[in-house]
């Protein structure tokens, strides 16, 4: 069996297997189980883009304690994180690094645009060094208005994101 036919055979075999896996996880309890496990382990990336990080820190504090939702405070490595919270204004200089951080995160990854500046450029919408729409860099799941939004508002956004994950397709 020559090299090409071996690769074709393995390719076809893998294709068939992935269909089986998708049909199995696509319906019923397994999909719910996978989504439930994703919902309860949202580890945020430790990158602060601007001044909303003060309120992100306040949310990580003892009063709201997001570890009840499975959000570990400092996750360190990017591979382990699956939630990128864009905290505040994204300048052009930071946008370059933010894009790299987003690409390094493992799928499935979710993005919350926290604060006006991440949603639409907010107070500094007419500045020369700002990226106004963050959704041009990567798809954003939840927008949180407020400058800065209250820690409870951010936690309500995370509860909203969990709703979205629960109803999501496993291999979206």
């Amino acid at each position, binding site marked *: 069996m020559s090299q090409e036919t071996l690769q074709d055979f393995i390719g076809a075999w893998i294709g068939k297997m992935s269909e089986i896996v998708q049909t199995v996880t696509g319906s019923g309890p397994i999909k719910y189980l996978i989504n439930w496990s994703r919902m309860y382990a949202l580890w945020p990336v430790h990158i602060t883009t601007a001044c909303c990080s003060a309120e992100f820190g306040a949310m990580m504090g003892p009063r709201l304690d997001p570890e009840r939702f499975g959000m570990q405070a400092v996750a360190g490595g990017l591979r382990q994180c699956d939630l990128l919270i864009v905290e505040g204004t994204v300048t052009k200089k930071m946008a370059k690094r933010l894009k790299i951080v987003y690409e390094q995160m493992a799928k499935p990854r979710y993005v919350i645009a926290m604060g006006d500046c991440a949603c639409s450029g907010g107070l500094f919408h007419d500045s020369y060094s700002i990226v106004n729409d963050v959704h041009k860099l990567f798809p954003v799941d939840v927008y*949180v208005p407020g400058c800065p939004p209250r820690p409870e508002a951010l936690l309500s956004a995370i509860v909203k994101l969990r709703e979205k994950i629960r109803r999501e397709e496993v291999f979206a």
Partner: protein
Amino acid sequence: MFLGEMYEGIKHIFKRTFTMKYPYQKLLLPKGFRGRHLLYMDKCTGCGICAWICPERCISMVPVTNDKEYPQNPEKRFPQYWYARCCFCHFCTDYCPTGALDYTPDYELAEYDRDLLLWSPERLSRPTTHIGEYQSVIHDNQGVTYEPVPKTK
């Protein structure tokens, strides 16, 4: 070597937990909390001072197409807020000559889609839906706890 610090830490085991169970316990916010705006459409004259003073120019005066009549606002132009850009400084509420704008303790405005953050005048005039009935109480040696606000107040 660390007995002082460990004793300090162990003492805290017997204090009450500081965490507020957020979705089930929400703080009762003071009356003047700068949350979402509340528009009284019968007082607004459509003068546009709020749009002028807004630091981000996020208020736009839009005509309202409903059958109600507003004697004080013939062209029926009311402020429309784009909450993706509003910084909640509430200069508009302070500078409004007729007092048509007010504070509400609403802060849960997160949306999946950014266009839903464009609040039309009718949506702004809906009363607040926020139910917060807990307050933080400081006990000298027990730390801080959260108790429901007594209804009598």
